[in-house]
């Protein structure tokens, strides 16, 4: 067993942390307040190769693997949840779906500009009546000669309002359902019939964009089918496994930040004639927080190592997402308590972190869905197939 990061990953973290603290953190409060996407940051991330951190260099990526990607998400999550969300939607699910199931030609045509940061990606799945029950989607794709015609409306699409390359899930055979009846497609935003609908006005991650996408008879050529016809649902779930791991990494960053704020505050703030660091109740809060952060760190990077060494990781990725989001929420809640009234003001980053953290328990599969995934994997090992 070896728990060391390799020298390339140490160097990569040094580079990313510097970028995060110099370029991302100074904008975090502003983009939250103004509700704007920091396009300038996304561009800079692309210029130094970070928008394709995990993809092979032959497709314009950096080649740092899932380990490198988790480092990126932890460091971004530590300073700005909105930026982590934009980047996660682009790399972790948008581009990732093409990397995992794309043909050689699709990777050249679509993954390469995404990995280079020249174009932004999005992953389009959720519908008004298909959230946790993702297989209940109604967006239709009907074959017409050499193309498919896509019709339907997708909701809650991160990056949807500006992404140029999106992967979409649609029903191709209503009689078959999730197994065999659903197909994934790569759609370009300039294809006729592709429209951006309403934008969500969110409680947190306000520096990210969440929009409705309307597909009105969008004609997509046959070569843009991602993976095999009828296997889109499985393909999308596979992508989501990766997204869940890296969301856990972003949550690790958020929890780490809450711990750092708390320690800094506890060693300076004096009450009853002594710094908070000398109060046992604060010590216990910080000890609990630090323990959970370390447990999460071990889980996240172990699963990243499993991905990079091609081991099965579905159940553990669900744990990363579920446990990570809950650890982050708890840590930020505790940090707020330690900071008292000042933590509740907008002069401190904690209230923003508090609003930002909540969504992590919901998106990329609610924590309830994660528990179903974990339990069904456990029971399957004991010969029980749990019923939905």
């Amino acid at each position, binding site marked *: 067993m070896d728990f060391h990061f*390799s*020298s*390339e990953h*140490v*160097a*990569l973290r*040094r*580079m990313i942390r*510097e*970028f995060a603290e110099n370029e991302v953190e100074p904008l975090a409060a502003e983009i939250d307040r103004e509700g704007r996407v920091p396009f300038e940051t996304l561009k800079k991330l692309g210029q*130094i*190769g*970070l928008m394709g*951190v995990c993809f092979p*260099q032959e497709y314009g*990526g*950096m*080649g*740092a693997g899932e380990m*490198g990607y988790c480092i990126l998400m932890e460091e971004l999550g530590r300073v700005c949840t909105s930026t982590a969300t934009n980047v996660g939607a682009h790399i972790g699910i948008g581009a990732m779906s093409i990397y995992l199931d794309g043909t050689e030609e699709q990777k050249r045509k679509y993954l390469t500009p995404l990995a280079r940061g020249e174009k932004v990606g999005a992953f389009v799945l959720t519908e008004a009546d298909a959230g946790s029950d993702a297989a209940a989607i109604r967006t239709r794709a009907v074959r017409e000669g050499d193309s498919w015609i896509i019709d339907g409306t997708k909701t809650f699409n991160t990056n949807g309002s500006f992404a140029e390359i999106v992967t979409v899930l649609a029903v191709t055979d209503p009689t078959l359902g999730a197994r065999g009846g659903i197909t994934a497609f790569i759609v370009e935003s300039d294809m006729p019939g592709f429209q951006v609908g309403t934008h969500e006005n969110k409680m947190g991650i306000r520096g990210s964009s969440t929009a409705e996408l309307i597909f009105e008879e969008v004609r997509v050529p046959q070569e843009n089918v991602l993976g095999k016809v009828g296997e889109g649902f499985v393909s999308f779930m596979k992508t989501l496994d990766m997204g869940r791991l890296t969301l856990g990494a972003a949550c690790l960053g958020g929890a780490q930040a809450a711990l750092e704020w708390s320690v800094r505050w506890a060693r300076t703030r004096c009450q009853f004639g002594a710094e908070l660091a000398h109060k046992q109740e604060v010590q216990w809060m910080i000890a609990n927080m630090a323990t959970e952060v370390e447990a999460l760190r071990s889980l996240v990077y172990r699963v990243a190592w499993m991905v990079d060494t091609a081991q099965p990781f579905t159940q553990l990725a669900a744990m990363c997402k579920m446990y990570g989001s809950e650890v982050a929420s708890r840590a930020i809640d505790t940090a707020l308590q330690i900071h008292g009234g000042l933590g509740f003001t907008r002069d401190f980053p904690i209230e923003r972190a508090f609003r930002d953290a909540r969504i992590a328990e919901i998106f990329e599969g609610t924590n309830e869905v994660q528990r179903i995934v974990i339990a069904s994997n456990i029971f399957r090992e004991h010969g029980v197939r749990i019923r939905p």
Partner: protein
Amino acid sequence: MRVIVVLGHVLDPRGIAVNRRAGRVFINRREYILQPADRCALEAALRIKDEMPAEVVVLPRSPLPDDDVLRQALATGADRAVYLAGDGLAAADDAAMARLLAAAVERLGGADLILTGATTLDTGQGQLGLRLAEALGWPHVADAWALKTSDDRLEVVRQEGAGYAVLEAALPVMVTVAPGALEPRYPDGARLINIYRGQGEVAAALETWDAADLVDADALQPLLERRGQEFPPERERGVRASGGLEEMARSAADALRRQVRV
């Protein structure tokens, strides 16, 4: 045009806690970063390369435990790096390094411009540039804020008193760059991964030379002897002025008169 950058490493100050009462410096994380002024020197070299055809070669400013900072420089855009190793090297001070580096510059076949940081973050040494210029018999400009090169001349902006002076020198010349002079660029991601993994073109850009092949053992003898270290005297606390604006101004003026004897 060949530009040589001499750079070194320093413990990341963020991994260090100083406890004056215990009289100790605690190293929580032993992580090294590029000396900030050396990093500015590298940036100055890369900006020259952005403007005209140039080869940027990096050399270490002090004995290094490993070649990490050289890899960082290669990832950031340097073309070639030479790691200097050897038994007698560990104790080398700036005087010894200047002799060694002069020999390394010869071995490289000379250069048009050598850049290094004007000072170091840890020991505050600013001798290396001067000593290297002396060893090579080159002119020397200290504390540059900006550089402009043409084929055979160099224009250097440096801070002098309350303003700036523009100096001109003929090449070759040795220039030390002030810390904070330039905003350094980030490494390129793929280059970084390749140089650390030892793959791709960039991996061949890093070589190791043995100090013993460049100079004899005497040349590596240090001038400096380290006898110990202690904390500098504690800084005196200032005086907080209170009251109205005029009152505060008066007490500030009084304090200045009393203490600084303005």
